[in-house]
C-alpha cells in the first residue's frame, strides 16, 4: 500500500482507528465504481464539457475532503490539484474542452485511483 498504513491514526483512540478503518473500507469498496464514472465523464467531456466537467469537479472535491483523513494522502493531494484545475478552467473557459495542463491534473488523479485499486488487488 502506497500510503503509510494508519500511521496518522496510530495516535488516535482505538475506537477512532476502527472508525477510520471502516470508512476507508467503504471508500475502497466504492472506488472502482467511482473511477468508472469519472472515466465515463472524461469521455463525455470531449463532447459535452459543460455538462461533464462540473460533475468531475464535484467528485474531485468530495475525495479531496475525505481522502487524507482516511490515510490516502496522495489521492487527496491529486484530487485537490484536479479540482483547482477544473475550477480554474470553468472560470476562464466555461463550456470548453479541457486544456492540456488541466487534463493532465485530472488524469493523474484518476491514475492514482487506479493505482490504489490495483494495489488492493
Amino acid at each position, binding site marked *: 500500500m502506497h500510503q503509510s498504513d494508519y500511521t496518522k491514526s496510530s495516535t488516535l483512540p482505538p475506537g477512532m482507528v476502527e*472508525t477510520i478503518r471502516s470508512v476507508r473500507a467503504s471508500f475502497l469498496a466504492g472506488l472502482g465504481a467511482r473511477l468508472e464514472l469519472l472515466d465515463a465523464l472524461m469521455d463525455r467531456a470531449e463532447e459535452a464539457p459543460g455538462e461533464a466537467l462540473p460533475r468531475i469537479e464535484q467528485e474531485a472535491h468530495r475525495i479531496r475532503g475525505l*481522502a487524507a483523513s482516511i490515510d490516502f494522502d496522495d489521492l487527496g493531494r491529486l484530487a485537490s490539484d484536479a479540482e483547482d484545475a477544473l475550477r480554474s478552467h470553468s472560470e476562464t473557459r466555461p463550456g470548453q474542452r479541457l486544456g492540456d495542463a488541466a487534463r493532465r491534473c485530472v488524469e493523474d488523479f484518476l491514475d492514482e485511483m487506479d493505482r490504489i485499486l490495483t494495489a488492493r488487488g
Partner: protein
Amino acid sequence: MRILAVDDDQMLLDLLVPSMAHMGYTDVDTALSAREAFDLIMNASQPYECILLDIQMPETDGIELCSMIRMLDDYKTTPIVMLTAMTDRAYIDKAFAAGAVDYITKPFDGLEVGTRLRIAQRMVEDRKAVTDKVFALNTLKTKVNEAYRFKRETAISIEDVPGVVDHLVLENYVLQLSRGQSFLSTAIGFRIVEFDRLFGSLSAPDLYYTLADVAEAISEQFRNSSFLMAYMGSGMYALVTSRGDPAIGPELQDAVQGAVDAMELSTEDGIPCEITVATGLPQTNSIFFGSSAMAMVHAALDDVRQREGRIPGFAFRRPSDDAARLDAHAERLSRMM
C-alpha cells in the same frame, strides 16, 4: 451540546460523527443536503446549539444555508462552523459574511474537530450565561410588577413626595382637626382624566410612578403652603390645606397641568404618556356637611369627579381645547376664593 452536521458526503459524516463522539460530543444529527438540514432545524424540539456546514454542496450550498439559518430567531447567535476543502479565502470570507463563526478545513483530524467544537461550546456557554442573566432580570421584573400591582380603586400609598401621605393618615389628620381648625381648612380634589384607560394600558410600576409624578406636580404648587395630600384611588387625590391658601386660585388647574406636561411622562419603554389632570373646586366644612370632618374631603372628591381637565382624555390631544368650559371653570373658582 446538540450538534447538526451537514455534508453531502455520507462517508465524511461517517468519519465526522465518531470523531465528535470521541471528543465527548455525542448528541449529533446529520443531514446530507441543505434541504434536509433545514427540515431538521425547523422540526427540532429544541434548537441545535452548534451547526457544522459543508460549504460546497449541490443545489443550496453551505453559505446560502448559513444565511437562511441566521434569519431564524432561534439561530441568531448559534455557532455555525463551516467544513471546507476550499483553500480559496473568498469562500471563507463569504461564509463569515453569511454568519459563520469558524471553519474546519477538510481533510480534518479528530483533534482539530475537537478544538473547534470546544471553541463553539464556549460560545454557547457564554451565550447561555447572558441568557440566564436576562431570564433572571425578567423574573425580577415580573416580581416587581406583582409587588406594584394594585386594584383600580385602591388608595395606594405614594412615597417620597413632599406633603403626600397615606389616605388613612390624611383621614386621621382631618378627623383630629378641632371643629375650629376644620372650618379654617379647605379640601380640593384632583383627578387623572380617563384613569381607567391609563390603568388598563400601563404596567403596574409605570402606573405607580405616573401616580407619584402627578402627586409631585400637584405638591409643587403648594410648596409654600402647609398641606397634606393623599392618593384616594381611582386616579383621584385629596388635598387639605388652610382656607385662603394663595395656591388655590383660577390658575391652579393650568399650573398643575403645566407641571405634569413639563415632566414629559413616559412609560418604562419610553412611550410618551400624556396625562390630563382635572382640578376641582375647593370645599369647606359647614353646617351643611353635618358633623363629619371628612365631609369636605368627600365633597372635594365628588366635585372633581364631575370635572374634565384641560382636555377630555389622556394620550389623545384634541386640536382645540374647550376654552369656554375652562373659562367658566376658572370663573367659578375665582368666585369661590
